């Protein structure tokens, strides 16, 4: 798999974003950003209202995903281009989610909304009208999703990558620094986890670093064993979806899972081991 299979650029989107068979989708941390302006012909997916089950802590089920994509006018053979703010944080989460339900023709706009805005490219407020489709999803691909027991079993056996900020890893913060700090669970990290903040994979303009720089970051500097399976986690599974994208889609690591329960689940479990303090 090459970069061009999973990433596209702003020039391509400007030239082909309105082509038949191409659907631009904005998925933002700030779910109101789309309403203030978005790339022409982009539709919106709300990472919370559209992708999370409203009652249980889980994703919308297969039927719910099918209904969502059908309503947005996305067909099975469409090329979906995802983009969003904050270095594509939530767009990468949606990418992983699309893969989870078997939509393989999906790419990220490299740099996302930030690079687009910093380059003063066009944003519009008109919402495109797309004809409804009859989307058919696959069963969830459990090869890319980790659950808590698998994380506990991975301690000392697999690569565990904690992609939160060093302060969250150490237990000094319980949430990213742009959000109020929560107090409901214990701070710290899963023992043996390496701390590679997700944002280190991105340049300041939100684009991904080169493959060589990424291999150096995760391999030489963090000490990940590329011969082992890997589980990435953060606080609620979005930032680690970004790292999953880097390891699985850009670097081609075969067995990488995203633990979407992440620290809000692990840090609230009774009886599991926790380490605190800075990375050693």
């Amino acid at each position: 798999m090459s970069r061009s299979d999973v990433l596209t650029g702003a020039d391509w989107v400007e030239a082909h974003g309105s082509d038949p068979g191409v659907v631009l989708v904005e998925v933002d941390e700030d779910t109101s950003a789309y309403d203030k302006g978005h790339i022409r012909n982009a539709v919106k997916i709300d990472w919370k209202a559209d992708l999370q089950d409203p009652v249980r802590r889980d994703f919308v089920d297969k039927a719910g995903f099918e209904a969502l994509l059908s309503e947005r006018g996305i067909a099975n053979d469409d090329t979906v281009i995802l983009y969003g703010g904050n270095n594509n944080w939530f767009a990468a989460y949606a990418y992983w989610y699309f893969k989870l339900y078997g939509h393989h023709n999906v790419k990220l706009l490299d740099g996302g909304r930030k690079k687009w805005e910093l380059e003063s490219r066009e944003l519009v407020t008109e919402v495109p009208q797309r004809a409804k489709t009859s989307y058919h999803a696959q069963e969830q691909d459990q090869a890319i999703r980790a659950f808590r027991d698998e994380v506990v079993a991975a301690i000392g056996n697999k690569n565990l990558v904690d992609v939160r900020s060093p302060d969250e890893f150490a237990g000094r913060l319980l949430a990213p620094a742009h959000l109020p700090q929560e107090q409901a669970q214990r701070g710290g990290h899963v023992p043996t986890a390496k701390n590679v903040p997700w944002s280190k994979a991105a340049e300041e303009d939100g684009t991904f670093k080169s493959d060589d720089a990424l291999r150096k970051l995760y391999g030489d500097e963090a000490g990940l064993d590329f011969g082992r399976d890997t589980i990435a986690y953060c606080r609620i599974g979005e930032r680690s979806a970004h790292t999953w994208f880097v390891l699985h889609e850009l670097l081609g690591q075969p067995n990488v899972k995203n633990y979407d329960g992440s620290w809000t689940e692990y840090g609230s479990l009774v009886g599991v081991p926790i380490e605190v303090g800075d990375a050693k």
Partner: protein
Amino acid sequence: MTAEGCGAPAGGAPVSAAKDAGNQAVVQGKVTRNGSAVQVGYARLLNSGGDFVAEVPLGEDGGFRFFAAPGSWTLRVLAPGNIRAERVVSADIGRVTELEVAV
């Protein structure tokens, strides 16, 4: 725990009362240019080691807000036209640190 997950509005999540940090270490402010709010741009928070910690898009009033840990931080602003600006700030629990960044 809030059910809001990671979702933060442009400009950052609100504090319960504008000047009351509660048990949070708040760093907030506005970005201006020639006296007017910069509405398109990003505020990034870097730790004392220079590593990225968090980022928010600027609000319509040019505002940003972070909930940091106590200590020294660097605020970096990015805006169209290759505009960059940096300020070093310190944060403390129970205090709202205000700053205006003119670019």
